[in-house]
């Protein structure tokens, strides 16, 4: 797949010493581009829809927006052909770049992905309308628990503790927030309870991992099972018979004045519930905390090289314990989204594997808070895209639409991310 070439070694003795540079030529991106280009040729041209001149309409504003943008109507077939041709061209460019040992700029990748997306949306929406703000609002909302979970995972794993228990933290947060918010009638206390519950789960994880030196993957998996069992049991025994313990108030959407009136971005980012606003703060704080503070440097140090951290006087296990607990607080908060942000009642296993997708976002995002957030947004977008296309009637069987995000993720992980590297001491207990 890849070849290593070296620049010519300096021959004459008098010549200045030139560093030999090894360039790795990876054909992954051109192959992936090529695959998608062929796919788009096949879908948009060969199976092209709208050959009788149908239009694909993109609605850019909602009815209540102050600034109304016009609807964009694209001729379906022509758009498809255009996109397919450009994608083939871009794939050829990437081949040429790699052949010449040059890097493929990230802009090219983003452009490629966006074009494919536009082409696909136009193709799918032949003769109907796609509500773009609705698509994106749903994306942010659906991503919220994933982002919280991924942030919790990043924090924990950066400190060197593998966190497979994100699902457990989300579920514990969802359960306790529903119960506390219903019992007290105050959803903010519910949020607090969710944080406490998430912290408790991760304290168990930390205690077993750091004190009893149990394998961290084992503890994580077992905690997931334990919390699923516990919440389901309590749900059947306690919540189901008495409904007043499971009817919390749902947070309303809060419009932020002025900001929420910016076209497209406004409704998407600033007409959300308080949980989403806290999410923005959490992303920034985790990033800032990990990469711009002394504490964050220590957390990363105990995750990469605990011996070195120990020799300069950092208490490895205490630092890890704090980071893991904090991760649990964040994940648990995300769990409150399920009950207080969306459904309004707890249900058995209502997180439905979201914790595992958050774990995938952590790995996909290379253990970096911002990248993990973007990965979570991608998953959220894919899920919501299938919802929206389901409503307007998609041309492909709905199962394949549902499958798409997961297939894209596999392609992305295999093609673009490749060997993502975990923190060096991730999962390894530190024994003096």
């Amino acid at each position, binding site marked *: *797949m890849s070849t290593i070439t070296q620049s010519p070694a300096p021959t004459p003795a008098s010549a200045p010493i030139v560093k030999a540079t090894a360039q790795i030529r990876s054909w992954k991106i051109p192959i992936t581009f090529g695959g998608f280009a062929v796919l788009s040729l096949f879908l948009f041209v060969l199976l092209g829809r709208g050959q009788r001149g149908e239009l694909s309409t993109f609605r850019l504003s909602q009815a209540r927006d102050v600034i109304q943008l016009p609807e964009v109507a694209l001729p379906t077939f022509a758009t498809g052909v255009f996109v397919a041709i450009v994608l083939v061209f871009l794939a050829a460019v990437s081949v040429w770049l790699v052949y010449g040992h040059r890097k493929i700029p990230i802009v090219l990748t983003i452009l490629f992905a966006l074009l494919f997306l536009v082409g696909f949306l136009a193709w799918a929406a032949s003769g109907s309308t796609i509500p773009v703000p609705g698509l994106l609002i749903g994306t942010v909302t659906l991503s919220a628990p994933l982002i919280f979970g991924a942030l919790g995972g990043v924090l924990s794993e950066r400190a060197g503790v*593998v966190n497979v228990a994100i699902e457990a933290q989300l579920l514990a947060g969802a359960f306790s927030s529903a119960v506390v918010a219903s019992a007290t009638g105050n959803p903010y206390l519910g949020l607090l309870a969710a944080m406490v519950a998430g912290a408790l789960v991760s304290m168990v994880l930390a205690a077993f991992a750091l004190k009893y030196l149990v394998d961290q993957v084992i503890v994580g998996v*077992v905690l997931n099972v*334990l919390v699923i069992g516990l919440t389901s049991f309590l749900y059947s025994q306690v919540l189901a018979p008495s409904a007043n313990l499971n009817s919390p108030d749902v947070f309303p959407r809060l419009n932020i004045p002025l900001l929420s009136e910016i076209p497209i971005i406004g409704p998407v980012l600033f007409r959300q519930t308080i949980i989403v606003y806290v999410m923005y703060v959490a992303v920034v704080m985790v990033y800032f905390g990990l990469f711009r503070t002394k504490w964050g440097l220590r957390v990363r140090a105990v995750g990469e090289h605990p011996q070195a951290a120990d020799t300069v006087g950092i208490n490895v296990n205490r630092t890890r314990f704090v980071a893991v607990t904090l991760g649990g607080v964040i994940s648990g908060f995300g769990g409150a989204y399920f009950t207080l942000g969306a459904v309004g009642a707890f249900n058995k296993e209502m997180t439905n594997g979201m914790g595992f997708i958050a774990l995938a976002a952590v790995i996909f995002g290379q253990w970096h808070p911002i990248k993990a957030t973007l990965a979570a947004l991608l998953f959220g977008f894919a899920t919501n895209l299938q919802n929206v296309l389901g409503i307007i009637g998609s041309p492909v069987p709905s199962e394949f639409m549902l499958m798409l995000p997961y297939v894209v993720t596999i392609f992305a992980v*295999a093609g673009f991310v*490749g060997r993502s590297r975990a923190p060096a001491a991730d999962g390894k207990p530190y024994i003096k």
Partner: protein
Amino acid sequence: MSDAAAPAPAYGPGKKDGSERWTQTLRDITGGSAMISVLAVALALVVGAVLIAFTNERVQETSGYFFSRPLDMVQAVSDAVAGAYSALFQGSIYNFRANNFLTAIRPLTETLTFATPLIAAGLGVGLAFRVGMFNIGGRGQMLIAAGAAGYVAFAIELPAGIHLIVAILAGLLGGAMWGGIVGLLKARTGAHEVIVTIMLNFVALYLIQFLLRTPGALQAPGSNNPKTPAMLPTAVFPDLFGPRYNLHAGFLTVIAATIFVWWLLSRSNLGFQFRAVGQNPNAARVAGINVKNVYMYAMAISGALVGLAGINQVLGTVTTGFGAGIDAGIGFDAITVALLGRSKPWGIFAAGILFGAFKAGGFAMQAAEGVPIDIVVVVQALIVLFIAAPPLVRAMFHLPTPGATKKPKIRADTGRTTNEVVAK
């Protein structure tokens, strides 16, 4: 539970007097892993009892006037706990209320029936653990295997005997293929197997859902339900002890699979490579092992073993046609089974039977006592948690630490998977 947890003490024979040897023996028993396992199960059952008691309505009622008539509450607690656990026992091992022995032993065969797919899938997950990989893709591998085996079983007419074998082979191939994709991607592109298996679970689920509602694929002809027709009788596992028991010949395939995995891991050349890569992939590479191929073979075999669980579901347990829920969460349960069995073939076999007993008994308990079956999940999780942390159990019961002179580092090796999973 396993030799890994109990460092064999090297006592010189004849060096000690009788009383000292007796103390050592006692220490081995109380501090050793067998005792830990028993105590872990007991401890988990105690926690389960507390949960059952706390959520029991009668207990809550009596607790209201605890200080005037405390015995009422004690009575209510013991009724609730004893009722639940005796129902659990009678539903999983031996039914005392039955008239004759053949009826009374029926719960035990139910336990083995429930254990069959758990053992098969546990072996698959455990094998991946031994190679240092985490296979969370049990659901997808089971679904694909069930789809492949099921299609052969209901759509193709073959003579009895051959039909069953062909159906099993189709299922194994399906599972191996679905697992093999993961190995291939990991080997060729470095894609992380945790992500790929999670994603393939969803892909398989939607693929099977699509096929189940497509006439001519898996959907029963003339039906609108997303369900397959019944399997042809020539492709169904025969009953082991006659029609009055549900236990089918699939249990024999699982015994064979256990022996195969044992042979593979401890007697074969490939298994040696598997374990070497699991211990340290870099060292294995230096020693000349083709690590990439090992990943592919291991995931394919792991997928086939998990697929065997799906095959057992469709050809043994649910032969009247299946839907997309045929995996019944076994792919995830298998992870706990593999962990409890410490990723060793016979350990997984025993763990599978224990969890099968919990499942069989759990249904009986739910039906008889109204205690939700979820309590069984809690108890299972606690058992694994306690067994994984012997120091915790020892501290709780004030047991002596075996080989107290040993360096604490040995503790880190309580789970064989420790180094193997992490060494990625």
